[in-house]
């Protein structure tokens, strides 16, 4: 019988690790980081909050009925945003009518029809790239193409088209995500009933994707309503003391589209114009306009977030 082998390592003294101290240290550092994380969150929340408060302090008192029904004026106390909000509304209608159908159609194509080939690959990468192009470049496109080459002038139609192109990627991406999240069974059930591809899309997929598409459309519109740079670039006038011809009239055919070719101003442009003036009175007007814009975009984004929440709760 041989003596039992000494266990290897038995003679080596293991460094003594105080694991409790390690755990304590880990917990402490975790706790510290959580505090830092919350602090960063609070900092950014404070920035947004102080911005809202700043706009309220500067501009809330200026918002009354006359502010909405007066044209811009040389005297800040008498100036209003009538032409700006009417312009914004008409430009938004034009943008929505162009961007939503186009964006949904492109999204459906990419999600449902596009096979794996070079052309579709190009389209796909292109949409992603367009989302990253600065908005002012869209303005230069509109200036060079719509205003100078097609001679469409600095009109509501041109502004609507420019902003529609700008928000197209947002709507395309939202449509694709909405369609992708529809369960496979819906599609299979439709095919099982004898529907062909287009019927499946039109009767089943699009209705099911509607809330998601709506969310994307709202986010896109809230982006468009605050966009300033591309509209400045096409050379929109900043002093507009008249309204576009009304879209509805008393004479036959009751509806006309002359307003599309009318010069215009929009709220962010009016606000920018007032900021650039030296008099403090105009800064108050700018703050009031900014407050209205801020509330509108926050509301629109809030609705979009709520919609998304509802969609998720349902599925």
């Amino acid at each position, binding site marked *: 019988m041989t003596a039992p082998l000494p266990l290897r390592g038995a003679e080596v003294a293991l460094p003594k690790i105080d694991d409790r101290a390690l755990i304590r240290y*880990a917990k402490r550092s975790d706790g510290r980081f959580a505090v830092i994380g919350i602090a960063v969150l609070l900092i950014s929340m404070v920035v947004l909050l102080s*911005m809202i408060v700043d706009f309220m302090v500067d501009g809330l008192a200026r918002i009354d009925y006359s502010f909405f029904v007066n044209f811009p004026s040389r005297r800040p106390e008498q100036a209003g945003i009538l032409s700006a909000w009417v312009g914004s509304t008409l430009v938004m209608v034009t943008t929505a009518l162009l961007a939503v*159908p186009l964006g949904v159609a492109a999204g459906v194509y990419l999600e449902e029809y596009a096979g794996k080939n070079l052309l579709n690959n190009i389209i796909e990468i292109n949409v992603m790239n367009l989302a*990253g192009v600065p908005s*002012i470049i869209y303005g230069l496109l509109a200036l060079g193409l719509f205003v100078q080459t097609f001679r469409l002038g600095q009109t509501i139609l041109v502004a609507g088209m420019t902003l529609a192109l700008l928000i197209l990627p947002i709507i395309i991406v939202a449509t694709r995500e909405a369609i992708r999240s529809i369960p496979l069974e819906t599609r299979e059930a439709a095919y099982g009933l004898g529907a062909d591809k287009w*019927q499946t899309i039109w009767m089943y997929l699009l209705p099911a994707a509607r809330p998601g598409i709506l969310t994307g459309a709202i986010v896109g519109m809230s982006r468009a309503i605050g*966009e300033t740079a591309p509209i400045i670039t096409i050379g929109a006038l900043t002093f507009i003391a008249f309204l576009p011809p009304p879209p509805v009239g008393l004479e036959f055919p009751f509806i006309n589209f002359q307003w599309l070719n009318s010069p215009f101003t929009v709220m962010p442009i009016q606000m920018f114009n007032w900021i650039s003036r030296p008099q403090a009175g105009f800064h108050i007007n700018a*703050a009031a306009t900014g407050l209205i814009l801020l509330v509108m975009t926050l509301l629109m984004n809030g609705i979009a977030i709520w919609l998304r929440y509802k969609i998720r709760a349902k599925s």
Partner: protein
Amino acid sequence: MSAGTSARIVAEGGKIGGRFAIDPGFLRRRRIVGFIMQGVLFAAAALSVLVTVGIVYVLLSESVSFFAEISIVDFFTDTQWTPVFENPRFGIITLISGTLMSSLIALLVAMPLGTILAIYLSEYANASLREIIKPFLELLAGVPTVAFGYFALLFATPLFQIFLPNLSTFNLLVPGIVMGIMILPYIVSVSEDAMRAVPATLREGAYALGFSKLQTALRVIIPGAFSGVTAAYILGMSRAVGETMVVAIAAGQQAKIAWNPLEGAATITAYIVQISLGDLPHGSLAYLTIFAAGLTLFVMTLVFNIVAFWLRRKYREVY
């Protein structure tokens, strides 16, 4: 209506007696409609390519006219930018320096804040806290840029001037910081996306080895999501470079080499706005400058976007 219409297709031509005979005319019409719709949808998707082609065409064709008169070497080496003066000089370097200076300040603000928030969101925050943080970031991202401009010029700059008496009314520092807050949601969402793509097994392995959450985040998650987090920074930079209203309002319009962030300097975007507000005749040299400047801006953001695209695809491939 949707379910009913589809069901009718089958029943419509069907005869009672177990056999279905679908009206061939209906099938033919349906095929034609499907074919036409596919064409329409394709046209809509192809339009997006036309937009890019249009952008490149407009920028290039106007820039070609510009560079026919101004040498491209002068454009990139001259240190003065005075296109509407008696003796016009065209040194885009001045505008590029203003653009890069303000964007770098934005990035210096947004990088640490964004990374901390992204780690917090992906590794620390529980579901209910996420339900607060993510909508908040979305709201922040939705604020119109012109409102940020007002805030930078009339609120933040006077505030900073209390601590920095040397700060000019128009400066690069404050718009830079405000832009940093602006691009924060974007950086958080892209880098959190990358951090969440790191497989749970790596995270669990780190915990099993006794790592704390912070150690896991710093030594496993960030290295694992490195390319994605870098992509987030680059995309943020690209956003800041193309951002217009904040700098147009609060950074001033003086084109000069921007050494000092406490002073104002024009950026490429601010210059384009400045010229667009004036009434320069179409085809004049100063009018053409905005397209040359726009082309420079487009190329800069395109390079950033391509690098970021490549980096993001890389982490998608790894996991």
